[in-house]
Structure formats: C-alpha cells, structure tokens
C-alpha cells in the first residue's frame, strides 16, 4: 500500500512538473498578458511598469523558480486578472464543475449499466440492437453539437428548461450547490445530460462487451450447472464481474468529464472551472492556468487512487498482489 501510494505520488509529481513547465514556457511564448489586460490608452512606460509589477519582466527561469518557491509555501500564485490567489479563484468554481460531473456520471451509470447489461444478454434482440445503435449515436455526436441541439429543442423550441447559467443555489458548509433547489436542478439538467450522453454510450458499450465476455466464461456455465436462477446469475455473478472494468473506465472518465466540462460549460454558460480555464487561456492568466492544471492533476490522481481502491475492493485478485508488494 505504501509502495503504491508512493508510486502514485511520484507519478503525479512528474505530471505536475511537466504540466507546470509546459504551461510556463507556453504562456511565455504566446505573449505578454499585459498586452491584453492593460488599457490600450496606456503609454509605453505604463506598460513596462505593469509588466514589472506582475513580475513578467524577469527571465522565464527566474519566474519559474519564484513560482516553485512559492509553491512550496502553498502559494500557487496570484491571478493577473483578478489579483487574488489563483487557487482560491479555482476552488470557488470547483463545486459547480464537480456537481455537474458527478451528476452526469450518475446519469450515465444509472442508465448506461442496465441498458448495457440488457444489450449484452440479448445481443440479437431488437431491444439490444436498438440500444447499441443508440449508443453509436451518442458516441458519434460531438459534445458541443449535442449541447446545441439540447438548447435548441428544450429551451428555444419547447421552452421547458433554461438555456444556461446555474440558477439558484443553496450554500451547504460553505459550498454552493444547485441540486437542492428546483430552479437549480432545472438549470443543471441540460448540461448534465449533455455531459452524460457521451459517457453513457461508453458505459453501455463497455457493459455490453463485458457482459458478453463474462457470459461466455466457464464459471457462468458452472453457475447455471449449480442450478442458480438467471436473476442471481445476472445480478451477482455477471454484475460483479463487469463492475470491475466499468469502475476503472469511469474513474478515468470522471477525469475526462471534468475536462470535457470545458465544452459543456462553454455551451451552457455554466460557471465552473472549465469556463474559467478558457477565459484564463484567453487572457493569458498564467497563474490560473497553472493552478487549474495542477488542481486537475491532483483531482485525477485522487480519482485514480479511489478507483484503484474500489477496484481492489471489487476484484480480490488485485488485493493479493497489493498485499504482496
């Protein structure tokens, strides 16, 4: 276990370092954020003064060294645009994104797994085939286009749901949540659905493939030979086996969901981290970009960790190897 944590830690540190260097060099290469932030009427002297004030006049390595130094004091830097700690700005937006991603994940699992199992058990039935055909669709539609269609249909044409924004929120333990109010839920429905559709297709396909695979296993036949009911075979023997790959993939996908939230948040004007990232990239707000990526790495690494723990809870074979090492 310790080994495992250490390995994970090592990997994420490398990822963090790679990310930080890339962003530093990259943002430096794009240009000077002062060019876009400053009032165009400012004189050249003003521009130079501002650049110095933000520490951008120093050579890149010096800026980086300073950043690393601050990092060790838990300081991810101060946003050029907002003048506030970058970490704070991002954490403020984190709940909105997490809320969206988790809801989407729930939707995709709760709908995807049963459909996938069904399609896997009855691959040649009309129902099974239509589920698969549907999932290919969900797979093929680009995320943003789905979002646009959702808006077009549900907001513009039918007027049932709001087209964007977060709606009313309730503050619980200092975190603002949408799903506790009716208005908030309404606002969340379309973006969550948008984010979920793709993953749902993925879950369906994955579950189906695994169900088919597991169905062919000798132990399923043995379970039948033991005289078990089909219900028990599906709900215990098959489901427990397919949950292993599903959980793994979903873990990875939660990470990518947070990333894909960028698109959904853009389409639905959802005030989450993804939107912030796009804005920050556009404004070359390097501290925020770096902090966002660092946070994402940390989140993804933690999710992977949780997934692995879950995984070992689900798959006893893994447990052994961990005990051993």
């Amino acid at each position, binding site marked *: 276990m310790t080994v495992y944590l250490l390995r994970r830690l090592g990997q994420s540190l490398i990822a963090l370092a790679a990310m930080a260097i890339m962003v530093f060099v990259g943002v430096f290469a794009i240009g000077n954020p002062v060019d876009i932030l400053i009032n165009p*009427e400012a004189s050249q002297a003003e521009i130079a003064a501002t650049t110095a004030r933000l520490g951008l006049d120093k050579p890149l390595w010096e800026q980086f060294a300073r950043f690393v130094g601050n990092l060790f004091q838990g300081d991810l830097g101060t946003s050029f645009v907002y003048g506030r700690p970058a970490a704070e700005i991002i954490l403020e937006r984190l709940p909105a994104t997490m809320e969206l991603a988790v809801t989407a994940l729930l939707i995709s699992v709760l709908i995807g797994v049963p459909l996938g199992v069904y399609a896997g058990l009855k691959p040649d039935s009309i129902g099974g085939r239509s589920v698969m055909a549907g999932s290919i669709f969900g797979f093929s539609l680009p995320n943003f286009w789905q979002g646009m269609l959702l808006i077009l249909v549900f907001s513009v044409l039918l007027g049932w749901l709001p087209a964007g924004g977060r709606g009313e929120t309730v503050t619980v333990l200092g975190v603002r949540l949408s799903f506790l109010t009716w208005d908030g839920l309404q606002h969340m429905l379309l973006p969550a659905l948008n984010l979920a559709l793709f993953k749902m297709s993925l879950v369906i396909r994955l579950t189906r493939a695994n169900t088919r695979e597991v169905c062919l296993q000798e132990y399923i036949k043995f379970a039948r030979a033991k005289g078990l009911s089909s219900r028990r075979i599906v709900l215990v023997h098959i489901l427990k086996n397919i949950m292993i790959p599903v959980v793994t993939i979903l873990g990875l996908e939660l990470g990518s969901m947070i990333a894909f939230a960028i698109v959904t948040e853009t389409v639905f*004007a959802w005030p989450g981290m993804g939107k912030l990232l796009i804005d920050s990239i556009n404004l070359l707000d390097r501290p925020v970009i770096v902090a966002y990526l660092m946070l994402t790495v940390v989140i993804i690494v933690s999710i992977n960790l949780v997934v692995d723990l879950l995984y070992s809870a689900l798959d006893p074979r893994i447990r052994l190897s961990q005990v051993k090492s």
Partner: protein
Amino acid sequence: ADLVVGLKSEATSMDPQFHQLSTNTQVLLNIFEGLTNQDALQKVTPALATEWEAVDDTTWRFTLRDGVKFQNGSTFSARDVIYTYCRVPLVENSPSSFTIYTATITDVKPDGDNAVLISTDGPNPLLPTDVANLPLLSADAAGAEDTVTYKPGGECEGMGTVPQSADFNSPEITVGTGPYRLESFVRGSQMVLTRYDDYWGEQPDWDKVTLRPLTSDGPRVAALLSGDVDMIESPPIQDLPRIEQAGYSVVDALSNRIIYLAMDQDGEAPSIGGTDGKNPLLDKKVREAISLAINRDAIVERIMGGYAQAAGELLPPPMFGTNGRAVDAYDPEKAKQLLTEAGYPDGFEITLGTPNDRYINDAQVAQAVAQMLARIGIRTNVDAQTASQFFSRRNALDFPIYLAGWSASSGEMSSPLKSLVATYNKEAGTGPTNAGRYSNPAMDELLKTAMTTIDDAEREKMLQEAEQMVLDDFGIIPLHYEQTVWALKEGLTYEPRVDQYTIASQVHAAE
C-alpha cells in the same frame, strides 16, 4: 421592484482601482462615483464635484458636493478625494493601473471646506474627464488616518493599511456614494446590489439589482427569451430580429468605438508576397486603393446587420474633434487603377491579422475585407486569433495589415490620435498602439500643442486639423463605428450609451 441584467462579461474585481476595464467600470459605477461623470454621450457632467475650473494652466479647482454620505454613513470630504488619488499607485498586481489618470497629478489638497485643488505637472485640459475615471473611495472604510497628505509617486502619508483588490469582496470595504451598495458577489454566478436609500441624487427604480455574467451569446439571448433576465447587453446582431419579434425592445446607439485597418509603414515588410520584398503599403496610393476597395456599406449591412455605421473618421461625429469628413466611397475600379499606378497591376499577397473574440463579428468583418481586397487583386489571408494572441503578435509587429478597434474613453479626438497614429515614441509615451508605425511629424507637433491647450474651442480646431492630416494620408483606414445594442424586457427603458456601459442604475421602468 427588482432587475436582473445579463452581462456579457464579469467584473474581475470589486476594487474600482484595480483594473481599468469597462466591464468593471460599468458595474462599479452603480456603487461608486467620481468627482465628475460622463453622460450617455460622454459629456463631462457634475457628480461629487458640483463645478470645476482651471485656476491656472496647471491647477484645477473642484467644488465638492455638500451633504453627501458614504454608504457606511461617513460624510464625504476632501480627505476621501485625497485618499482615493493616493491609493492608485499603491494597488498591487494591477494588470492595468489607474495611474494613467494620476500620473500628471503633483498635488491634491483641500481648498477650504468644500473644494479641492488638483495640481498637474503641465497643462492638462483633460483632467475633468480623467477624474471621471477615478471613483471615490471612503477613506474611513479603507482605514485611512485622520489626515491624508498627497505626495506623488505613491509617497502619500496617513494612508494606514491600504486594502487590496481581494479585500473588496467585503461589503465593508466596498463602500461608495453611489445609488447601490454591494450585497454579495459570487464570482462566475452573480452580483447582487441593493438600493442605497440615503443616496444624494435621484433614487433609482430598483430595490435590488442582480447582475449575471452570461458570457456566451446564445445562452445570454436564451436567458432573456426565457425570462431569466430582464435585460441583456450586446445581444448578437443576428438574433435581434428574433428578439424584437418576441416582444422585447432593442435600443442601440453609436458607440465611441471605431473599427479600423492599420498598415505596416515601418520600412520593408518581407511578409508581403509578390512584391520582390518591397513594402507596397509605404505608397499612399496603395493605402488609398485599399480604402476605396472596401464596401463599408455592405459590411455594415451584411455582417453587422445594420447595427454599425460606415466610418470616415476616427470618432463618430459630432464627438469632440471630428470634422465631418466623408466616408471613402466604394470604388474598386479606381482602387485597381491606383494599384496599377503604384506599380502593382497584379496586386500582391498579404496577411490580415484580426482578433476573433474582441469586437462585434470581428473575424467576419476581416474576412469580408479580405474578400473585397481579393477582388482588386490583393490576395488576402485572414489570420484570426483569440485576442490575447492577436494583441501580443500585433504589438510585436507581426502583421503587415491588421484589423482592430479603438474606443476613446475621454470621448475626444486626442485619444485615437495619440494612441493610434502619433509617432511611436517610448520616451514621450506617444503612439503606444501604433503598431503600423505610421509617422507624420507635422501631425505629431500639432497634436502635442493641442494636448496642452486648455481652451476647448481652440483645442478642437487643432484636433480636427490633425485628424484630417492623418486621414488624407490614409495613414489609417477607418471601417465602421460599432453600434452598441441592448435588449430589454417590455416595460424597461435604457438610454443607450456611447461608452458601451451597461449601468443598472440608469435602467428605468417605463412610465
């Protein structure tokens, strides 16, 4: 009654001295006020100063309004003015400092009980305009000492601990004299303002104002149409027919923003193809040809949906310093002829730089321009980028020709002339945005004189003349003036503003 406004971008800070950004200013103008104010037409009007006069060439006297109380109850006095102006250079990490308005100020001191004297290091005719951009803070709320003494360069005394941008999230510190006070600000989601009942001026119509950032055009319109918000700024022009059809009112006004083309006139330009390394843009005939090749009306009509006005000057008339110059006529024949005369009968190849998320339909306009230039033989590639990249590359002189916009915050001709076409000179601080490096020493001289001329009439004449010189030279090519649009729910009115600000306190319920 409450008002919910959908804004296209969010204020980056509640600190009125942190970031010079129209998004910030338009929000903060609900809470704070300066000594002066600019009205919808950018005319300077009294605010916390009831009147002002130039005492001599370098000193202005502002009479302070009586009986004004800050939202925290403290009485407005000269100390607040001094404190406010003192704090400007002390704001840390400001990405765009307000020092450009205080740089010339050498001293601020009380003059009797109800006036301040502001001295500058030279004649500054624009000081009353400048101070409109410096909303006044409450020295008490900010924790100043009892006496604050002005010293230039951030050396003031009696400042106490100066609150920084992040502190302004607290309604305790964000205290102004304006009609609204800050109730809450949830970044990314909304800002809530409540009416300040002891406001000295006319009470606004709304008890509570909610400002929502809806940065994507589509959702912003959708939010209006679905009734989530009462009013939005900058609805995309292509959606206006639909919005009007749905029973919403649309108001618009010519803005102070001009969209222009600037051309590289800085020696040879190797990035232009088909000219054997010569820079055709150095030739006035070529520049004129470019201007004549552009069908501005078509752009206004087709790309801007009619919500723009073809431009012949650097500011829309009748703003200060305009001279009524006619819009260059669309004349491709003559343009071709001019090109031939200049020695480019087959045209040349050029890359037009443009931002794609900064001005209304900016990349579309650039493509339309490219189409038109292509027709007279100037094969034009469009290099559209997000604003940050565009501005960085533009400032690095990467584009032989580029499209950009300019809005004059002072509302007078000196602003575009000084920034866009005055010779680039680091020391003098002229031409900071002159990335085409156009240079006309005669015009520079004239502008310099104008800038130190306090007398308005005299100054206007000089500015008109200077502008004429540049435009006759085709040193810069105006395309169109943007028009700013607001869409409102039935029953609301808003006087459209040249400066494109959406100021909630000025939204009214129709009688």
